[in-house]
């Protein structure tokens, strides 16, 4: 109730003069009247008595204000007064107001965008109950998030720290609900998934741990709410319906609640199925293979009172046991915990680093904007020194004037912040609706809608920056001597050679130069990475995904089917070559396996000679991918199960295992199961996991020799098809040829270079885009900064310039006098910024491939860019300085 009254009194103060103020006025007036009465009684006439009484009373306004303050009630009222006055002042200089608001809108908008991305992806937990105690388990020193299913079972059953542990996988499949087949994304989850996360169904029921009875025992589907809405039209009769998943009957059990989007921030599955049915869903069941770390993530809630350190110690003791019990499969079994939303540190680590860096740069932008506005404010205060002096002379306190200046600054920053926030909300909405991987994974989103946190941060930033740049002219105002100013008019203060404004401008320009430098380094790096050698040629090639398992093929029928597939595609007109690969290089990671030298007999993981990328390929892949063979031969269709085991290895593999690239052909190495493999060819090195990686060893194995019970290679193999014609037409021809082969098989075709842009190059593209935008903002800010300073100094010195012209100064001399200082500051700031920027780009090198600060092109680019910016920014002031007409100026004085 009390607070209600307070609000009412504040509101009253806001809209009309408060009764308290009226009462104070009345009391002071009554005092003067009483005194006048006394004076009148002593013989003065009434008018004279009142005049004397007023004089004796002293500074009426001042005491009224002080009395009011003593009552403690006029904060809001003064604020409103100040705000009104500020608005009036700002309306008088619309140019200044507009420039300030836009500058701040840019800066605060940039910060709001970066912060809300950070907020959405890193700060905000998953939308599940008690998300704060939910952790994913990472393994080994390089913090791998993937595990093998038998290891998961051991972790789940032996730990004492988690309420329960769940495991899940993300995969694609073909769903046939009666009409045409679609390829949705789904999560294969353990039976305890929903129960452990505490999710309740919004329709029907979920599956439970008790539903799992061995392989393919639980053919159930739980639909995501949005998928139910879009594909089943909110049909409540969907529960109990049987649909065909990869041509196997699955029963729809229920629908998840609307706000449950799964346990990955950026990928919402269309539905969930029990992981025990992996054989049906993926075409192959690897749940019994301890060495196959195909489970995407293991996670669970910590028990109440258990700390992270205790849980890690608990897991590590299980790890020690696993290493002893399964020396062939398990090594380096140490564990750590991470937040599950971004697939742990696999995606979360680089994302955190990148966003922190971006946040830092955005902060710099805001700082530059504040420096910019600070110098504008200082200039404005100098111009207004007469007004300030007058107000001081009339009895206003310095505190009051400062308060008004701050009100003006905060007003500008609030409006600027609001504009910036509005812009960023529009941008973020667009970003959230964006499907960056529409070709590979249409369910992938960037869920970055702003929330209260974002609004709050934007507000705080706005107010803080208002105070920051409002504080710049404080000293100037405190030192104003009203009598001097009023007496002498606007005298230019001489003496100090370096002013606060100069320092601010240098700081601002160097910040902008940092931004310009880093964005140039990033752009150069991106261009470099687009033209670097990946070990294959993505242009004029396409990836044809024809998933055999989703078409119902399994086991022995697969290799034959695959050969038919390749032959069919090869016969399509316009196709030059085609070959299959289980997972194309640079396609969301790679499969790896450890290998041993031929002489090794103790095949435990710690004795491995190398960990190599594994690619199961068909004959013709090298030709189709344009991966050149340095020596030896390609595979033929005769390298099948009945032939000796062979491999093509890359140059790095050869030099690591055989310490020679020439003698490796014909040599042998061993795989963990003891198989001896003969090297028949050497291929060039390439990029496999990411474009920034150092050379990695890789081995290519003939797909016909890879034991298909063991891996998932054939099931999701991709055809690489090279063409010399219009790819769109060829793609259509391939599609129709394949649907003739099997109408029920979902086929996806993407251009390889486009796919690379969406996956391996995505991070550097985004980084470059972000840095490019920030660099552009930096450039704009430095233009406004230099322009403001130059325009101001020209306008201050018009008279002096006029005199110089009258005395016969040359154009160059006039320019030198008018803008020499601006250019000197620009050069100084740019140099400082360039050096800082080059230091900063060391960090960039980790994200943007080929980003090197020691690039003469970047150096000259930055110098040229800053010079150009300087030229653009000083153009108008320079014109004004040159067009000075001494006669008019002299006449005006």
């Amino acid at each position, binding site marked *: 109730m009390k607070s209600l009254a307070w609000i009412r009194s504040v509101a009253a103060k806001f809209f009309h003069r408060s009764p308290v103020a009226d*009462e*104070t006025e*009345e*009391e*002071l007036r*009554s*005092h003067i*009247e*009483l*005194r006048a*009465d006394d004076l009148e009684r002593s013989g003065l006439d009434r008018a004279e008595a009142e005049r004397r009484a007023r004089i*004796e*009373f*002293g*500074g*009426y306004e*001042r*005491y009224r204000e*002080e*009395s*009011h*303050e*003593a*009552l*403690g009630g006029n904060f809001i009222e003064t604020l409103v007064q100040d705000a009104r006055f500020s608005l009036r002042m700002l309306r008088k200089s619309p140019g200044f107001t507009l420039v300030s608001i836009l500058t701040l809108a840019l800066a605060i908008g940039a910060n709001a965008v970066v912060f809300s991305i950070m907020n959405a992806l890193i700060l905000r937990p998953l939308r599940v109950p008690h998300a704060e105690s939910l952790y994913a388990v990472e393994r080994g020193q390089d913090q791998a998030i993937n595990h093998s299913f038998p290891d998961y079972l051991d972790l789940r059953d032996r730990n004492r720290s988690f309420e329960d542990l769940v495991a899940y996988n993300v995969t694609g499949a073909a769903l046939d609900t009666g009409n045409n087949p679609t390829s949705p994304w789904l999560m294969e989850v353990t039976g305890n998934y929903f129960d452990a996360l505490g999710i309740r169904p919004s329709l029907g029921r979920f599956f439970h741990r008790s539903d799992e009875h061995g392989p393919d025992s639980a053919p159930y589907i739980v639909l995501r709410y949005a998928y139910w809405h879009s594909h089943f039209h909110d049909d409540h009769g969907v529960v109990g319906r049987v649909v065909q998943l990869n041509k196997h009957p699955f029963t729809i059990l229920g629908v998840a609640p609307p706000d449950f989007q799964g346990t990955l921030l950026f990928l919402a599955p269309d539905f969930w199925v029990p992981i025990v049915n992996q054989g049906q869903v993926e075409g192959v069941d690897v749940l019994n293979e301890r060495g196959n770390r195909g489970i995407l993530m293991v996670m669970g809630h910590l028990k109440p009172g258990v700390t992270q350190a205790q849980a890690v110690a608990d897991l590590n003791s299980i790890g020690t046991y696993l290493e002893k019990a399964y020396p062939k499969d398990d090594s380096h079994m140490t564990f750590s915990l991470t937040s599950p939303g971004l697939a742990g540190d696999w995606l979360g680590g680089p994302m955190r680093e990148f966003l922190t860096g971006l946040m830092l740069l955005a902060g710099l932008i805001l700082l530059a904007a504040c420096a910019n506005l600070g110098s504008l404010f200082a200039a404005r205060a100098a111009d207004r020194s007469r007004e300030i002096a007058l107000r001081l002379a009339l009895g206003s306190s310095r505190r009051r004037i400062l308060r008004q200046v701050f009100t003006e600054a905060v007003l500008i920053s609030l409006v600027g912040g609001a504009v910036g926030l509005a812009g960023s909300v529009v941008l973020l909405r667009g970003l959230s609706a964006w499907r960056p991987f529409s070709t590979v994974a249409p369910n992938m989103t960037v869920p970055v809608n702003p929330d209260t946190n974002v609004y709050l941060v934007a507000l705080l930033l706005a107010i803080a920056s208002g105070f920051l740049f409002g504080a710049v002219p404080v000293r100037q105002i405190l030192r104003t001597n009203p009598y001097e100013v009023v007496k002498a008019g606007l005298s230019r203060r001489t003496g100090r050679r370096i002013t606060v404004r100069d320092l601010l401008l240098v700081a601002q320009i160097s910040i902008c130069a940092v931004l310009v430098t880093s964005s140039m380094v990033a752009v150069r790096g991106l261009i470099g990475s687009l033209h670097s050698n990946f070990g294959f040629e993505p242009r004029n090639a396409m990836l044809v995904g024809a998933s055999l398992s989703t078409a119902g093929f399994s086991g022995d029928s697969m290799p034959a089917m695959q050969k038919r597939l390749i032959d069919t595609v090869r016969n399509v007109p316009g196709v030059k070559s085609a070959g299959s690969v289980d997972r194309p290089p640079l396609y969301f990671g790679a499969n790896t396996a450890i290998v041993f030298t031929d002489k090794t007999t103790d095949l435990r993981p710690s004795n491995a000679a190398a960990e190599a990328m594994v690619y199961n390929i068909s004959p013709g892949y090298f030709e189709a991918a344009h991966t050149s063979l340095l020596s030896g031969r390609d595979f033929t269709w005769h390298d099948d199960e009945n032939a000796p085991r062979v491999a093509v290895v890359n140059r790095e593999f050869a030099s690591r295992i055989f310490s020679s690239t020439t003698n490796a052909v014909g040599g042998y190495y061993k795989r963990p199961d003891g198989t001896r493999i003969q090297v028949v060819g050497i291929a060039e090195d390439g990029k496999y996991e990411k474009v920034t990686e150092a050379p990695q060893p890789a081995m290519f194995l003939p797909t016909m020799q890879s034991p298909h019970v063991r891996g998932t290679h054939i099931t999701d193999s991709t055809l690489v098809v090279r063409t010399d014609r219009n790819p769109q037409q060829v793609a259509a021809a391939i599609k129709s040829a394949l649907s003739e082969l099997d109408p029920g098989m979902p086929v996806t075709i993407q251009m390889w270079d486009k796919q690379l842009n969406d996956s391996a190059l995505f991070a550097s593209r985004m980084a470059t885009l972000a840095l490019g935008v920030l660099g552009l903002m930096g450039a704009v800010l430095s233009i406004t900064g230099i322009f403001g300073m130059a325009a101001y100094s020209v306008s201050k010195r018009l008279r002096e310039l006029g005199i110089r012209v009258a005395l016969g100064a040359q154009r160059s001399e006039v320019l030198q006098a008018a803008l020499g200082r601006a250019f000197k500051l620009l050069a100084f700031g740019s140099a400082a910024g360039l050096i800082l920027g080059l230091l900063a780009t060391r960090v960039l090198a980790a994200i943007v491939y080929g980003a090197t600060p020691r690039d003469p092109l970047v150096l000259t680019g930055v110098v040229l860019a800053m010079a150009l910016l300087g030229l653009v920014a000083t153009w108008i002031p320079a014109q004004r300085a040159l067009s000075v007409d001494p006669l008019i100026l002299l006449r005006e004085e």
Partner: protein
Amino acid sequence: MTDQAQLLPGTLDLLILKAVSLGPLHGYGILLRIGQISGQALLIEQGALYPALFRLVRQGLLKANWGVSENNRRAKFYELTAAGRDRFREETEGWNRVATAMAVALAAQSEEI
């Protein structure tokens, strides 16, 4: 004018409390009372009284009510609250101690040290 003394900081509040302790007064009346009891020796600018008065009201030492002055003008009358009376007593004692100590200190002669 020259024989009037500037007020020491903080003493105006005590003077106001003293003036009001002798009976309810309006602002102008307080000034007159202070002049009267100090023998016109203390200089107070008239307007300066009000911020001090309002501060004391806010601290709960004084309370104010509108009333009518002796020559029929509306005026606000101040009187001590219970807390004001306590504070007045404390401040008076404090002031006397300081004044005594100062007097003794300033009267000290070199042979007494």
